[in-house]
């Protein structure tokens, strides 16, 4: 049984053909050529901490946990060009006199998160060749974009009113957390921290009814999100909660990122990239990253796809056979009923939490992506092994899931009973594209039916206006020949229908893949239910495609939620 964010679409990798096989060879060539660079990338004194080399043990990211209801962390976002030419972006914090990168932030529902962010991004900002930049197709990306604010770079005034998005601008999005869309909490429209600005403080409270699970953080400066996330700027957030299924199991926190090496041959337009696992390149011929699994013991995996473009179809194979993975949560929200799947479709920004079956004695396993057909004009997402699972007689020296006091029952969590409410509005939206060249740039749109498609600009008015208290059903189509990934800020949504067919046991997600149109027949679509009942949702925020070059390219729009009357 496959899961496509719960088995919504038939996942396959059948659209291979000679062209894709050639591209796969290009990817492998790129990977091989880039590998040498990875091995020596940090020979010089780095600004960013060293990242692990290929073929070594996968370590969980460093943890920072809340204490007495507060998690306070100082992060600096900085960049460094490795000797391989690749531009790394790293979230750095100091721990016991050492620089550490991209910590996992662990909090409980109701905790306060204080994150002090310093922007230390310096030129050069990226290392992508011209042809790859063209792939990041749009008329705005990699060019400054004016905004309506008053804040000047380096000034002590409030970056809540940014004036211009520059390659050195940044901010943070707490992806999936249901927190207010306001500056200092989770605003990406007006908040811009320029390089040289004083340290900027994020201060937000995890809602007491926040579902326990995996979330993540990443930059969201429009036009430059791809560059910074592709450079590695991301980290996991875990909202703790007791679960009898996972308590006491060895926990693996896996952040899958995606890099675009610039060395070597191949055609960057075809999107050669390398997936990394907790920063370790997953390159088979260098030795895959590995995890020692205790023979005969189930283990708990939390996986976030922090890649920029790659849609993953994750599998755990033992002896070449895909194993049933007991999925307990998607996008941070526990499933009503944990369900076994052999393939988990994970779009960029998606998260899956599952229990891997016990590794039998004498067997090895591999954690992999089986590849994804992103459509006739989509990126190539080839099959790729990610992690080798080695048998061990001992449990790994990894974080053991903590036993926390029982939290609020799921039934009373946020979004409870959403399925049974009557929507107050119905809306129809669609993804579409228009190009004047086979090589880009392409204009990318997400449009409310009846409105004129337009490439997103930070000054745009909201495309949708609604009120606190509303419950809306949105049908979102993909009218283009490549897959798109719908993401809603601030909210999870309930996936009610897929391709017009009601979902029997709908899941709450914040990111969902809509496959490419095949060129004939109906467009693929989802109908999702949006819950604007929480008064903290009031404000203006965005929805967009989470394939990040699409987002940077303008496949984004604003929604304004007015306070209740």
């Amino acid at each position, binding site marked *: 049984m496959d899961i496509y964010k719960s088995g919504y679409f038939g996942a396959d990798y059948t659209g291979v*053909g*000679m*062209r*894709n096989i050639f591209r796969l060879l290009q990817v492998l060539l790129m990977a091989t050529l880039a590998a040498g660079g990875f091995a020596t990338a940090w020979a010089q004194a780095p600004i960013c901490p060293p990242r692990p080399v290929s073929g070594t043990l996968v370590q969980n990211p460093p943890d920072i946990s809340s204490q007495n209801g507060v998690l306070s962390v100082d992060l600096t976002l900085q960049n460094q060009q490795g000797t391989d030419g690749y531009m790394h972006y790293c979230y750095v914090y100091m721990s016991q006199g050492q620089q550490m990168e991209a910590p996992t932030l662990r909090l409980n529902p109701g905790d306060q998160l204080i994150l002090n962010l310093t922007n230390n991004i310096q030129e050069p900002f990226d290392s992508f060749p*011209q*042809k790859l930049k*063209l792939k990041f197709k749009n*008329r705005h990306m990699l*060019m400054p974009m004016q905004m309506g604010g008053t804040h000047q770079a380096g000034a002590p005034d409030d970056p809540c009113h940014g004036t211009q998005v520059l390659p050195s601008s940044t901010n943070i999005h707490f992806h999936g957390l249901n927190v207010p869309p306001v500056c200092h909490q989770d605003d990406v429209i007006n908040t811009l921290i320029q390089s040289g600005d004083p340290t900027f403080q994020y201060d937000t409270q995890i809602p007491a009814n926040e579902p326990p699970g995996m979330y993540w953080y990443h930059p969201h400066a429009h036009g430059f999100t791809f560059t910074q996330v592709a450079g590695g700027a991301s980290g996991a957030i875990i909202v703790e909660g007791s679960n009898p299924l996972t308590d006491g199991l060895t926990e693996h926190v896996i952040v899958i990122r995606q890099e675009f090496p610039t060395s070597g*041959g191949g*055609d960057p*337009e075809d999107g050669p990239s390398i997936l990394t696992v907790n920063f370790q390149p997953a390159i088979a011929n260098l030795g895959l990253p590995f995890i020692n699994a205790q023979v005969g013991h189930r283990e708990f995996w939390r996986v976030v796809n922090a890649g920029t473009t790659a849609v993953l179809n994750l599998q755990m194979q033992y002896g070449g056979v895909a194993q049933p993975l007991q999925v307990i949560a998607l996008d941070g929200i526990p499933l009503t009923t944990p369900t076994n799947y052999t393939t988990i479709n994970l779009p960029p920004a998606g998260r899956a939490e599952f229990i891997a079956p016990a590794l039998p004695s004498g067997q090895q396993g591999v954690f992999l992506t089986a590849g994804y057909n992103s*459509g*006739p*004009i989509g990126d190539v997402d080839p099959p790729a092994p990610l992690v080798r699972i080695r048998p061990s007689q001992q449990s790994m020296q990894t974080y053991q899931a903590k036993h926390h006091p029982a939290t609020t029952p799921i039934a009373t969590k946020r979004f409870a009973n959403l399925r049974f409410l009557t929507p107050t509005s119905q809306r*129809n939206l*669609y993804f*579409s*594209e*228009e*190009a*004047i*060249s*086979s*090589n880009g*740039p392409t*204009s990318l*749109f997400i449009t409310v*039916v*009846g409105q*004129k*498609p*337009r*490439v997103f600009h930070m000054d745009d008015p909201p495309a949708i206006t609604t009120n606190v208290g509303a419950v809306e059903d949105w*049908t979102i*189509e993909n*009218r283009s*020949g490549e897959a798109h990934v719908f993401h809603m800020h601030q909210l999870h949504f309930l996936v009610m229908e897929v391709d017009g067919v009601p979902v029997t046991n709908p899941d709450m997600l914040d990111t969902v893949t809509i496959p490419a*149109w*095949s*060129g*004939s*027949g*109906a*467009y693929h679509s989802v109908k999702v239910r949006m819950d604007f009942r929480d008064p903290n949702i009031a404000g203006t925020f965005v929805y967009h495609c989470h394939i990040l070059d699409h987002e940077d390219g303008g496949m984004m729009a604003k929604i304004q939620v007015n306070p209740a009357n």
Partner: protein
Amino acid sequence: MRSQFVLRVVLIFALTPACFGAHSASTTSASHPSPPTYVVTNDDAGIVFDENTISYFIAGGSPSAPSLTYQNSVPIGGVGGGGGNFGASSIVSLPDSNAQCLYVSNAGSGAIASVNIQSQALAGTFSASPTDAGTSNGIGLALNRNYLYASFTDSNTIATFQILPGCQLSFVNDTNVAGLNGGGIYAIAANATILIVTYGDGSIQSFNVSGGVPISNNDEQNSTGYIADNNNLPSGIDITQDGHYAIFGDGAILTTVEVSDLTSGRLAATRSYQLGASATAVSPTAVGPGIGSANVRLSPDERLLFISNNQSGNITAGFFNPATGGVSPGCISPRLSGFYNPWFYLGSMVTENTSGSGGVLYVAEFGKQSSIGILNINVSGGTCGFTESANSPVSDPVSGAALISLWAYPPRPF
């Protein structure tokens, strides 16, 4: 090898000027003029280890089911670009059935190849400045009797070459250009006196080329369509036979073309014509007839304007009035066979006949396996229609994922 040699001999014979009879009478249906029509593609192979080629196809089939048959491919001494701007021509000749030379851009190696049409022999490859480059989105070509112009999309330069006997070219100089809004060069078109340029940012410009080297007419401007909707980007260009009008195909969500009056010797403000229907409903048909309209091509009699809907796989036709420059909605083809599997973009178009409506329309189909679409053009009174041939598409066995531009012999007479 032997069979290819025989084919080549046959083709040389067929293309010998002595074989070229008078053009057939104007026709509005698919009949095959004598001599036969050849369609030639710039295969544009962008693979570093492969030499780019042009491929020859011969028109045939029946009037109700026209066809193309692959003949052979000719290496042209460089590396292609693997695609590029839909609206830029990368294979051109003089619009004359006595034309001797075919000029083809090798975008990957930054040079222009020249091929003798009759012998199919490569006459040479010609470079401009060492800094001229067009690897990202190709090298567009345009010419008149004395000069060939090449638009390099990376360096934003227009190279001027003097056309010499024997299909030789002599580089004259480069002209640096830039769009009004920071965009790069997109496509060019020329006649004896004017060179017209589109940029990828909604602006257009013309140059006086009476003396060969382009001299700006100081008329750079945003197009009217772009001003109204910045999704509309003038892209491909055609010029009427009398040089009175320039017609721009817009990269646009709904099929849009623009027309500029050239009477003054410069570009007048364009008139914009939206021919596409609005996409408002949530259904498969609401894709809106005609996404993208970057390629435009007048019929030989200038009564029809053919438009490639690059991203929706249709061909739209508008009725063109050569007296006023006006365009009115005509017809749209069904989505062509093979859209999204195996091809996914439409490129340039040529007609089989050199008079009337053109009879049969051939269109480049870019995809993981590039091909040529074949449509009968049906005109009756004030209506038009397209019927895709049962033999369409015809695969280009050499191009792979790169076919944007094709050319026909004998060429349209302007």
